[in-house]
């Protein structure tokens, strides 16, 4: 078969079986993948990997078969990798017997053997399960210019945009293959040209836009294109501090799930925009103006697909993607103020907040007062993926509310702003 990518003699050898039959199949997959996008060569991956597949979903047996082939051939990720969150935590996210039966028998019955496979392939550690792998506590923080082989759309868009790393929106398995090979085909967001903006987003709101709605509006408009966002620094500043990073994490996840954005630039804020400014904008870029009315239009357009549209909410999920240390503290303050306002001491709904295991440990240790407050309000802290919980057909039928536009997009959960969700959680109704 004729391939278009230009391979080095060593790469050619791998393709022809110099490192075994399984590695040759890994290489063939990546060469075909590169050919599909006009890649001319491989470039080396820097640092750790990140896998989107963290769940032992029984139906993914064919994926487990590939893992077995890789393990059998003695292949692994030398630099180690993190993975998306685990699906289940019965201690903090209660389920009834039938729900548990579906989780344990029909859905995630292969969780334990799958985690054993991940360990053999180079998982960073027992607590390496989070979608926000790029946070300091987790220890998979790429540097500007690093080439990555990651999947998980929210992590890819953060690494590209906020950290200035270079990563395509890879699919599950492809990201593992790139990490094993230590190389990825060079195309799209790995190239200077591919990182140029096809859209100018002109933010003209009269107040700081809600991150999750702004990201949703941008994603739905530009789909997979790169947007250059102007006017947002007026509201979130020009410094990439912890608070700003939390905002950008949430905005980015919404652009990636409501559209397919893998990279955005923010004028005067994100690293490449600071360095290159308007030179990042293509000459033929289109403009999308976002004002208060546009944000309201987008939010009002979200469908209510609850079985009973007028149901009383049962559960609240906050933290998709996983919360940062700073955000956990901000939520403690937000709930404290709202409880005081409504004259209550505990939330009225089943409120679940999610963050990486290492972030929760940091929060418990270094902001123990806020940690204790959240628990005393009746709020549960966990490290699961809310999306994987909602994938259970029984759980998906529940009236769930969330501040995550990603969770709204993929499940029946209804979206509300941070302020609205706080009020609902304390009051017990919409």
């Amino acid at each position, binding site marked *: 078969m004729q391939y278009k990518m230009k391979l080095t003699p060593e790469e050619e050898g791998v393709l022809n079986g110099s490192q075994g039959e399984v590695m040759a199949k890994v290489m063939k*997959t990546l060469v075909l993948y590169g050919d*599909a996008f006009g890649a001319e060569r491989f470039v080396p991956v820097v640092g750790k990997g990140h896998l989107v597949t963290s769940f032992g979903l029984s139906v993914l*047996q064919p994926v487990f078969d590939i893992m077995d082939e890789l393990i059998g051939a003695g292949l692994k990720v030398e630099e180690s990798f993190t993975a998306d969150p685990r699906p289940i935590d019965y201690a903090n996210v209660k389920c009834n017997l039938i729900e548990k039966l579906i989780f344990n028998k029909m859905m995630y019955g292969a969780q334990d053997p799958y985690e054993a496979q991940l360990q053999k392939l180079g998982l960073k550690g027992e607590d390496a399960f989070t979608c926000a792998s790029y946070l300091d506590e987790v220890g998979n923080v790429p540097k500007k210019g690093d080439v990555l082989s990651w999947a998980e759309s929210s992590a890819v868009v953060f690494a590209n945009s906020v950290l200035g790393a270079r990563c395509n929106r890879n699919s599950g398995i492809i990201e593992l293959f790139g990490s094993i090979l230590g190389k990825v085909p060079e195309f799209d967001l790995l190239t200077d040209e591919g990182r140029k903006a096809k859209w100018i987003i002109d933010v003209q709101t009269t107040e700081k836009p809600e991150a999750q709605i702004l990201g949703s509006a941008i994603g739905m408009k530009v789909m997979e294109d790169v947007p250059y966002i102007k006017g947002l620094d007026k509201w979130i500043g020009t410094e990439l501090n912890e608070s700003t990073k939390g905002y950008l994490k949430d905005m980015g996840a919404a652009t990636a799930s409501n559209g397919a954005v893998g990279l955005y630039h923010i004028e005067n804020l994100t690293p490449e925009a600071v360095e290159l400014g308007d030179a990042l904008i293509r000459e033929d870029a289109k403009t999308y103006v976002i004002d208060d009315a546009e944000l309201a239009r987008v939010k009002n357009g979200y469908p209510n697909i609850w079985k009973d549209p007028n149901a009383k909410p049962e559960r609240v999920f906050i933290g998709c993607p996983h919360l940062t240390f700073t955000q956990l503290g901000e939520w403690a303050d937000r709930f404290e103020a709202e409880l005081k306002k409504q004259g209550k001491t505990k939330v009225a709904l089943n409120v679940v907040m999610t963050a990486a295991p290492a972030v929760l440990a940091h929060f418990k240790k270094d902001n123990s007062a806020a940690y204790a407050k959240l628990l005393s309000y009746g709020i549960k802290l966990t490290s699961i993926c809310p999306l994987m919980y909602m994938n259970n057909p029984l759980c998906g039928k529940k009236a769930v509310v969330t501040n995550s536009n990603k969770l709204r997009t993929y499940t029946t959960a209804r979206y509300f702003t941070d302020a609205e969700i706080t009020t609902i959680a304390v009051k017990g109704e919409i």
Partner: protein
Amino acid sequence: MSKVFKGRPVVAGKISGKEAVVSHQGVNTLASFQKSALFKKKQVICSDQNNPDLYQKNLTDKVICLPKTIGSTTGGMVLYSVCAMGIAPCAMLFSEPIDSLAAAGVILSDVWVKDKTIVAVDTLGDEFLNYVKDGMKITVDEDGTVTVD
């Protein structure tokens, strides 16, 4: 009467007289295939409520005609999995250049699944997607020529 379109074969193969199922919006792979795969059905009935073109339609052994796929980065491995399970569409015909998730799915199927594949042709253009309708018979040649009857 038949009409011929020319695209780029991403995974080349021959398909003859298979039935088209058409989506005018991006197909969310996870949302579309997950439910049938989860319950190990013998056929995939599209479960994506946000896609009125495909919702509740049978996708197994059909030719899905679409602009591109969207959604979770699990998309590629979901396509690969349904191919390995023998319940995948027989072909995917893209009006636009193929996206990275769909490319991963059809290439993984091609390399890692024995005796089964999902033929994929992209850049068939808007005219193709405007012309093709549910139920039309599709023939695909190795060189990316697509004939719609």
